[in-house]
């Protein structure tokens, strides 16, 4: 178990592209941190710098109590699970899992024991003598996990490990990985572009965009108090409604109606989660529902409000029809963003 | 960081030495072609380039090397082009047609045809060179372009290559085309051929180089100096170097350069196609 500290870590490629802008944060011992963001946001580059697969342009990276900027990947005491598993195709499952140990000059019987233990943990006992090409996607994924856990590393790195699996398997493996990490208590950094994975697995989420960190926080913080309009629209499905509002005389207004008290003056962006708009016959606000998406457990109403499109999430037992509808708003659930910069106010 | 640097230096040194080994021998021919013959005869290849290339080039292109006066460099260049182009085009056209028939038609004897064709992959022309010569002789095709080209086409490399490629074309494509009302010829011309463009280019480069560089077969089939290709003519050129008072090194060497230049340029300029054709065809 190790604490990981990034101190103004930066990556500039030879062609001048700044993939990661100076980033600083600390990952606590045993913490599960998820780096999330759209493709090209620098999250994988960040992970690969931690792994040592990518040179660090500037800044310091500390794993445990040493600066590891110039330490070989093999000497960083890390284990990594790759997106396409990166299993060695010519080795059996047993050899794949044991390969890293073998190179550390660990006695053969110890390796055998560890491989067996890992296989037990991951239900791979029957497949130890197969080659990766004879395994299903989920099994390969488990082998990749096995390869990581036998090493007892001080840090786990995951690079979109579930993106090659189908939806059902992905949900299942998500839970398995999380449970495994809890049991082993190993510090973990997990990269994904899937906000559901980020929300469900993370102790803390780091949202990245355009090489920059937008927000660091617990899933609840990121969800309920997004630091920017980007985070607001990236996290959550359906995303937070972002509406143009006007602040005057300490009140934020949409379509001339006061939504909430707010100090300031001029245009702002008002954020409200779809589930924080409540159908209420006595509600102050009137929206026009144009389309209803049936999702079983709940429904998404697509509507317009004072000329702006919004989404409203309602429980399955709420009756809804297209046309005019009255709603109320949870005023304590509102977020305000600067209309220009998108930063939270 | 120092360790990484040393490693990089070693890597580059190995590559530079390798590159020099590949380049210097040919540069040596060029140097000899640029130097007056008398100097070459005395000292061999040197380090300084002379100014004789234009003069030697003119000699090489327009002065005949043999006895009949027919095999000027220009004539041989022309013959080489015909062999290279004829071989490449013939092989691709015939190969594509056969591959199309095998892959896209319900044919009773498709398997038989496949085996008849693919057995030819097993035996290179060199092992049946004499009987092939006799047959070409019987057919009266000695010293003709047909005799030069057609027997070389009698192997299935291109057919095999296109068969592999056609099989990798998605099944839905022919289904969609048939629903859109395309017949077999329309499908071939409108869809398959345009789709194969890169494959054709890749194959063309490999086949052109292969045809251009043929040596043994042209040596046997062409005795008429007017039919010599550059590569075929090389032996005769080097033989004229023996036993003369002042061998024409310059002319000979510039002919070697001319003989390798077209295929070399094609391989360099169309490198990615060439590599694709090579690595995908031979498997």
């Amino acid at each position, binding site marked *: 178990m190790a604490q990981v500290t990034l101190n103004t870590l930066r990556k500039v490629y030879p062609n001048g592209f700044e993939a990661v802008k100076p980033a600083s944060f600390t990952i606590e011992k045993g913490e599960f941190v998820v780096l999330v963001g759209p493709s090209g946001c620098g999250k994988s580059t960040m992970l690969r710098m931690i792994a040592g697969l990518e040179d660090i342009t500037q800044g310091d990276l500390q794993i445990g109590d040493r600066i590891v900027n110039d330490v070989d990947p093999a000497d960083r005491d890390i284990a990594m699970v790759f997106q396409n598993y*990166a299993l060695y195709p010519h080795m059996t499952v047993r050899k794949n899992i044991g390969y890293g140990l073998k190179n550390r000059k660990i006695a053969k019987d110890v390796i055998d024991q560890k491989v067996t233990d890992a296989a037990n943990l991951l239900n791979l006992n029957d497949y130890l003598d197969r080659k990766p090409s004879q395994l299903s996607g989920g099994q390969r994924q488990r082998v990749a996990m096995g390869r990581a856990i036998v090493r007892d590393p001080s840090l786990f790195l995951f690079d979109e490990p579930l993106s090659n699996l189908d939806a059902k398997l992905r949900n299942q493996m998500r839970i398995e990985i999380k449970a495994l990490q809890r049991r082993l208590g190993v510090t973990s950094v997990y990269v994904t572009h899937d906000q559901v994975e980020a929300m469900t697995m993370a102790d803390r989420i780091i949202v990245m965009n355009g090489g920059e960190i937008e927000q660091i926080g617990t899933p609840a913080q990121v969800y309920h108090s997004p630091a920017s309009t980007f985070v607001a629209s990236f996290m959550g499905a359906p995303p937070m409604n972002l509406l143009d509002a006007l602040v005057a005389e300490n009140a934020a207004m949409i379509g001339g109606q006061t939504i909430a008290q707010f100090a300031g003056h001029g245009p702002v962006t008002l954020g409200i989660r779809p589930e924080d708009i409540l159908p209420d016959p006595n509600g102050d606000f009137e929206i026009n529902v144009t389309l209803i998406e049936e999702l079983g457990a709940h429904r998404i109403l697509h509507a317009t409000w004072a000329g702006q499109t919004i989404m409203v999430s309602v429980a399955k037992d709420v009756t809804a029809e297209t046309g005019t509808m009255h709603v109320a708003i949870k005023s304590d659930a509102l977020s305000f963003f600067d209309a220009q910069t998108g930063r939270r106010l | 960081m120092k360790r990484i640097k040393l490693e990089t230096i070693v890597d580059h040194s190995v590559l530079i030495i390798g590159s020099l080994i590949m380049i210097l021998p040919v540069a040596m021919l060029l140097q000899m072609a640029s130097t007056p013959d008398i100097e070459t005869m005395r000292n061999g290849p040197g380090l300084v380039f002379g100014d004789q290339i234009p003069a030697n080039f003119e000699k090489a292109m327009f002065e005949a090397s043999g006895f009949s006066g027919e095999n000027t460099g220009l004539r041989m260049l022309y013959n080489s082009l015909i062999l290279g182009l004829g071989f490449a085009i013939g092989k691709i056209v015939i190969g594509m047609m056969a591959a199309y028939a095998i892959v896209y038609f319900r044919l009773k004897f498709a398997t038989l045809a496949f085996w008849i064709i693919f057995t030819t992959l097993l035996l290179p022309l060199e092992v049946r060179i004499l009987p092939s010569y006799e047959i070409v002789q019987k057919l009266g095709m000695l010293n003709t372009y047909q005799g030069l080209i057609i027997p070389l086409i009698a192997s299935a490399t291109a057919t095999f290559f296109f068969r592999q490629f056609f099989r990798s074309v998605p099944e839905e494509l022919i289904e969609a085309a048939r629903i859109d009302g395309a017949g077999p010829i329309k499908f071939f011309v409108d869809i398959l051929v345009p789709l194969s463009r890169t494959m054709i280019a890749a194959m063309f480069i490999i086949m052109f180089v292969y045809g251009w560089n043929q040596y043994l077969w042209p040596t046997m089939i062409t005795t008429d100096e007017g039919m010599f290709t550059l590569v075929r003519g090389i032996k005769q050129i080097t033989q004229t170097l023996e036993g003369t008072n002042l061998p024409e090194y310059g002319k000979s060497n510039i002919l070697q350069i001319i003989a390798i230049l077209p295929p070399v340029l094609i391989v360099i300029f169309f490198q990615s196609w060439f590599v694709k054709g090579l690595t995908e065809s031979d498997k």
Partner: protein
Amino acid sequence: MKRAGFSIRWLPILLLLPQLSIILIFFYWPAAHAVRSSFFLQDPFGFGETFVGLKNYTSLLKSSAYLRSAQFTVIFTLMVTALSLSLALLLAVKADKVIKGAKTYRTFLMWVYAVAPPVAGVIGLVLFDQSWGPLKEFFGLFGWDFRLGVDYFDTAFAMVVISVWKQLPVNFIFFLSGLQSIPKSVREAALIDNRSASGRFWDVTFPLLAPTAFFLLIINITYALFDTFGIIDTVVKGEPSNNPMTLVYRVYVDGFRGNDLGGSSAQSVVLMVLVLALTVFQFRMVERRIHYT
């Protein structure tokens, strides 16, 4: 065949016709002819032939010149294959690794593919020239009096050097593309699992290159046997006399120059059997080899 293939009868036959007729006339006919001729003794003046059974074959086995060529061919093939494969692998590994100038190195290392074998032979003649050949001079510094075309060993040595030079690009291209088709993440996983670069090469990279290497082994053997004809013919200047020669070159010399059709045909048939054996071996290995996905 495609599931939705066309079912017209005449068109595929028409499409196959050119290929099949060329193959029948210029492949099967000569091949059959060679097999037949190998059992006959031809009259040198073309007045017919006599059936002699296996005599052409037995006299081959008794001919010390033939056996000498066979022996040379084996050694020559082994040397050319081993040297050009290992040098090409070294260069490919380095070319795959460097970042700066990778494309330039690649071009420099592959363009010789397009050089015709007899031109390579001529280059050899210059390099080893008796009066001023640069390599001859170089060997002279070490007291090696290199005599191309006179000394059997020296001539064989020059043939190997030139043949390796000419074959290097093909092997380089295949090894490089083999290296590049190894998934990046597999190499990165190895980077985390193994700190030693040579360990990573032998444990991960090389096994993944094995199919390429095996395929190249067959290609190189075929090359050394057949495609070196132009090099050998140029190096010996068309005058075999006492010089080393490969079996294919002997087919040509005995049959075309020496007019011994029966003997030459028997040699052809021996070569055919050799190639067939090689191909069968290749197919069986390919079948057995693991298909990585």
